């Protein structure tokens, strides 16, 4: 799934983002998001980091959760708001143009679930560290952090193969949009370091895409 870097092109024109993303990933991203959203229960408070056009946000709302979606891209948010209105979720979905650096303003232990689809790979190193700390703070004890993102494969042959596929795509994207994404190293380990317990990990066949379900411990005995 090295093609994720191409999404930066799609993002520059949100109107074609949703269609393009289905085509690029052959529906795999949709299925990954379905699996992540299946962990959400009715009535839960959910935060969607880097919600984009609202793919995960709407799934969470469909399961009966109250969702806040945040993103720094005003154009993508406009699209997300349209979709939420179209689906009739205006009462349970709230969108806000803000970055992860503003998570400090969210109250402690106020969310049951925090989701992040293809957001961590766009953050700088400082931002990722800050985000993991803040997510841990704003999650209720026992709350879930659900992540789906680009990853660096663990095994060397797969790592090289992924690089080979990704490199030309990244160059094209960079020339067109002057942006790129950064596949993340050892995300499960980083989550554990921050004190999250990993409930499940699912990797793509090439190991360049990872889905993680992790939990903030309930109390001291849990850690």
């Amino acid at each position, binding site marked *: 799934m090295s093609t994720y870097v191409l999404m930066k092109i799609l993002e520059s024109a949100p109107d074609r983002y949703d269609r393009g993303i289905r085509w690029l990933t052959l529906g795999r991203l949709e299925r990954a998001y379905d699996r992540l959203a299946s962990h959400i229960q009715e009535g839960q408070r959910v935060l969607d980091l880097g919600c984009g056009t609202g793919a995960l946000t709407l799934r969470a709302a469909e399961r009966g959760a109250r969702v806040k979606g945040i993103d720094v891209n005003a154009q993508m948010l406009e699209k997300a708001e349209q979709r939420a209105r179209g689906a009739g979720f205006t009462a349970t979905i709230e969108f806000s143009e*803000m970055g992860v*650096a503003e998570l*400090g303003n969210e109250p402690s232990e106020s969310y049951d679930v925090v989701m992040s689809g293809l957001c961590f790979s766009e953050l700088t*190193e*400082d931002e990722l560290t800050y985000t993991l700390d803040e997510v841990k703070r704003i999650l209720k004890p026992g709350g879930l952090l659900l992540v789906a993102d680009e990853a660096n494969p663990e095994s060397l042959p797969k790592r090289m193969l992924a690089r080979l596929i990704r490199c030309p795509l990244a160059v094209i994207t*960079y020339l067109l949009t002057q942006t790129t994404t950064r596949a993340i190293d050892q995300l499960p380990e980083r989550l554990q370091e921050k004190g999250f317990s990993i409930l499940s990990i699912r990797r793509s066949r090439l190991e360049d895409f990872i889905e993680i379900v992790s939990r903030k411990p309930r109390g001291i005995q849990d850690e």
Partner: protein
Amino acid sequence: MNELRYVLINIMETLLRVLPIPCATGLRVIGDPDEHSPVLLTGNYHLTVERVRRALRGLDCYLLIANSRGINVWCAAAGGHLTNHDVISALKTSGIEQRVAHRRVILPQLAATGVEASVVQRKTGWKVIWGPVYAGDIPAFIDHGFEKTPAMRQVAFPWTQRLEMAAAWAFPISVISALAAQVVWPDGSIPLALLVWGLALLIFLSFPLYSRWLRPEGKRVGFVFFDFGRGGLQLILWGAFMLGVVGYANWEGILSWDVVWRWGFASLVVVLVLSLDLMGSTPVYKSGLHEDRMLEVVLDENTCRGAGFCEQVCPRNCFDVDHRQHRATRPRGHLCVQCGACIVQCPFDALSFQSPTGETIAPETIRRFKLNLLGQRMK
């Protein structure tokens, strides 16, 4: 050793100037700062960071490098690649809040096109001070108690910068045309590359000679500043030139497909060089690429209360502010490059853009969608 490294980096990255070159973001400590030392911020374009660090030698301060996607501050801010979010992120996630007791950050003035001082302050508590345009003025700016002279607020286009821009254009075009010449005219590669360099240097270095006839609002400003979007006058001239070549070759009895190919290719390269967005390559003119976006800044005198932010951020010194009468005027409005910084920063929304069709573009639209997206919005 350090000097040599600095010179090499400057040469290499000037040749590749049209490409973004990112470097690591985050906090850099300069000298031996304490909790009262100034905090400065810039984008993560590698060449910028190198130059800023050099300008800060001998000072004790903190330098925050925000994520501008490897693009220089002005282009990144105008294009929506250096935003409120990137500045907020640098302030909140770099650890600077644990290092200093104050909450004042000096931003490059040219970031004012894309970063809203009021939003940054509301969301983080950090007060934004608009620093000078050029990093070289930072030490004097700090010495003067964060006051800017008019010269520190203004963009210039001295010969050093003109040489840089000539090299930045000549290098990629000469490489591409020399490679293409390998196919149609192998012997012509080197002369063609030299021709491209010669033309680029001539156009940029002689800029002061003809710039007095260029007007930012004037669209038909002379051959070298035409582009293909303007009705293709250069294509007509190119066609006429080629007819001349064919006629001459026929007259001399040397007409062949080879001759037409070679001269056609070489002159097309020349036309391409002359058709670049050269006005947009200068800091003193609005890009000539989008005639439909030739906007005009309009100042509403009834809404203006003389806050003076426009004067602080205008890179062309268009504004005068009467701080006693609380009123701004735009006596040098003809110099405007339509960067939009004054509109974005005005706390009373007294400034706005007006399109050629008379349509007003509200400040809120510019703040949200930045300049490069306005084109889509205006249609």
